[in-house]
């Protein structure tokens, strides 16, 4: 069963002559362990798709199911709990709290969910260790490089029992080496059973995904077929 399922999602803003369709009849399902990329130009509806999948915004029509449960049937509190416990977000500009250390940024969502501070920090430290940045745990965001900040943001997105990772241009502000490191971490999280959706305009980023969907003017217009083995690219035939 898909961990995230979007069924015939449409989203409109405004009314009458100012009506704008941000998404039109978008359906998408993502299993655990799978990384899906949604590729499209600015204004194609990518970020709207992500905020609806993450229950930060309601669709105009259609249904979102997470782990088989429809968001429409959930109370405001249930959705808030789902966001704290199950969904991790990664944004282009990191969105770390500047007054908290790296460790505190990662442990905060667990502490907000009533976990003891000690347990939350142990789990947060484990998350920082898993992405190789434990030695920076006591530093504040402005003492970290862009690449380090994004790693902290990924640790925060996967800490605890999160099973859904939603990322909006997660390496957009980083150089290519750091961007690649970020995508490897997201793939690493998928190998641990996380379902992930990355929205991007960048083919380099999208190419890390198992499946790439192309969004245009609010509609999914195309998608890649699962790639054959990469071995097919190498040394096809030898004539001797």
């Amino acid at each position, binding site marked *: 069963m898909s961990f995230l399922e979007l069924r015939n999602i449409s989203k409109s803003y405004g009314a009458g002559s100012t009506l704008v369709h941000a998404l039109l009849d978008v359906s998408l399902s993502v299993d655990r362990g799978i990384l899906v990329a949604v*590729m499209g*130009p600015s204004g194609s509806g990518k970020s709207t798709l992500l905020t609806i999948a993450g229950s930060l915004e309601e669709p105009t029509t259609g249904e979102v199911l997470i782990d088989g449960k429809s968001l429409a049937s959930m109370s405001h509190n249930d959705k808030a709990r789902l966001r704290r416990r199950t969904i991790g977000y990664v944004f282009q500009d990191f969105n770390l709290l500047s007054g908290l250390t790296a460790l505190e940024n990662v442990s905060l969502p667990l502490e907000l969910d009533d976990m003891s501070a000690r347990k939350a920090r142990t789990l947060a430290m484990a998350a920082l260790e898993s992405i190789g940045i434990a030695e920076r745990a006591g530093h504040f965001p402005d003492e970290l490089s862009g690449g380090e900040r994004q790693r902290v943001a990924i640790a925060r997105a996967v800490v605890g029992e999160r099973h859904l990772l939603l990322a909006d241009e997660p390496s957009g502000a980083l150089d290519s080496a750091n961007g690649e490191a970020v995508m490897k971490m997201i793939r690493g999280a998928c190998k641990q059973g996380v379902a992930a959706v990355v929205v991007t305009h960048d*083919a380099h980023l999208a190419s*890390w995904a198992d499946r790439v969907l192309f969004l245009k003017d609010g509609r999914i217009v195309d998608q890649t077929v699962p790639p054959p083995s*990469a071995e097919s690219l190498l040394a*096809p035939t*030898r004539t001797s």
Partner: protein
Amino acid sequence: MSVRHALLALLSEGPKYGFQLRQEFEEGTGDVWPLNVGQVYSTLQRLEHSGHIESDDTADDGPQKVFRLTEEGKSELHRWLSTPTDMASPPRDELVIKVLSALRVPGIDVYEVIQLHRRYLVELMQQWTHLKDDEADFDLAFALVVDAELSRLDSVIRWLDQAEGRLKRAELEPTGPSTAPRLRRRLVARR
């Protein structure tokens, strides 16, 4: 691709056998560009003929023949490395011609042609990128080849994105005079 110069580069490390050159060339390019034996020996013969390499005269032609770089070969190798690869003239790119042709053919949607290629290129990029997943057996030469391929494919996708944007803007704007003569003049002037 200059097999000739790549062989000179391998010989700059010291004398080598023909079979060894073939093996090192393939390993050095991550096995992405296989060479057949005939291609290696005919290139070596040409290099010997032009005085860029020399071989042990006493040995017969074959795998046991040792080749070494001459002073002339060394300067040719340095000249090649320090000369920019010719990229001055726009290549006659089939994809560009296809998109330009699609604009003229009735019943063909140029945006569909663009998306068909975009998807194909992303699929190719996925295959290359997934090779990076297991970096344990990823040697440096192969990593450089993979990066080069990914950058090349990405640049084509960027062009498709630009082309789509430009075509959409052109649909909204009134038709102006063609810029073709001016472009042609500029390209000619640069040569």
